[in-house]
């Protein structure tokens, strides 16, 4: 177990290295510059890439669902969020998870 704590400490420090580096460099970054716009694009793309990968090619516990279940679950979440409610996050997430759960139950 000691090794697991060490692993956590190293992973935490390594994750913070990115954060700290961001603060360090950001001192010279102007929010109205072209570089800032490019960095925004990269930030959004990195996040979207990670989430898309989780949904399209999941690993771990999420891999127990089929691609169809994830697609329909996502559709249910988006529909509940954008159409059925006025962008209610809670309703959207619940609709997505319930849809997957029901499909698993039926299958």
């Amino acid at each position, binding site marked *: 177990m000691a090794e*697991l704590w060490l*692993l*956590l400490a*190293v*992973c*935490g420090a*390594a*994750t*913070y290295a*990115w*954060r*700290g*580096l*961001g*603060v360090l460099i*950001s001192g010279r*970054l*102007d*929010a109205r510059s072209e570089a*800032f*716009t*490019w*960095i*925004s*694009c*990269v*930030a*959004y*793309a*990195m*996040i*979207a*890439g*990670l*989430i*898309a*990968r*989780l949904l*399209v*090619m999941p*690993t*771990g*516990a*999420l891999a*127990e*669902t089929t691609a169809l279940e994830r697609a329909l*679950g*996502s559709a249910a*979440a*988006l529909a509940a*969020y954008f159409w059925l409610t006025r962008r209610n*996050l*809670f309703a*959207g*997430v619940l609709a*997505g*998870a319930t849809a*997957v*759960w029901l499909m*698993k139950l039926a299958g």
Partner: protein
Amino acid sequence: MPAAVLAAGYLGFGALAAAHEVPLALAAATTTVIWALPAQLILVEMHVLGAPFVATVLTVVLSSARFLPMTLMLMPLMRAERHRRWHYYVAAQLLALTGWTMAVARFPRIGQAERLPWFFGFALVCMSASVLATAAGYMIADRLTPLARTGLVFMAPMYYLLILTGGVRDRPAGLGLAFGALAGPLAYLAAPQWSVLIGGFAGGTLAYLVMRRRKSDG
């Protein structure tokens, strides 16, 4: 409200940690020390698979690369004369996807000097709720059916999907998200570990170039 939905994602993480017999204190500690759900899932899952120490660290580091552009983008928006420099280094640790998305969405309506205090308040509530949810998920794990656990685990990506698509307000966001969503999985096929870094860099740069092209055309 975002804290409540985020907590649901961490319930799932807590339950997963319990199922893999990771100690409760450690599971809760990852939520404050790493504070990035995807990296925490990697840590637990790779440990269970018996992956080598260095491989696990490398995977976590590469998946967390997004924090560099995220902090780079957020910090200039929170800059104000009266804040001390170290405040920003503390804020960086509190930064996660939820706080970042909410901040980007709310900042136009918050005065420049009030943004950092607002961010501290919001992020601390999110983190506290998430630590509690990790512990709660851990403790109810053995009462959850595998089916219910799948539902909980699915909540986190749904939540990210909605706050991202719902938060699109400008061109960098829209194009970046679209290109990134394509580039991420493609990069994953080529080099799984490096996919966040390569996909984000390529997708984001492409989005930026398309945006510039359109601007000069119009």
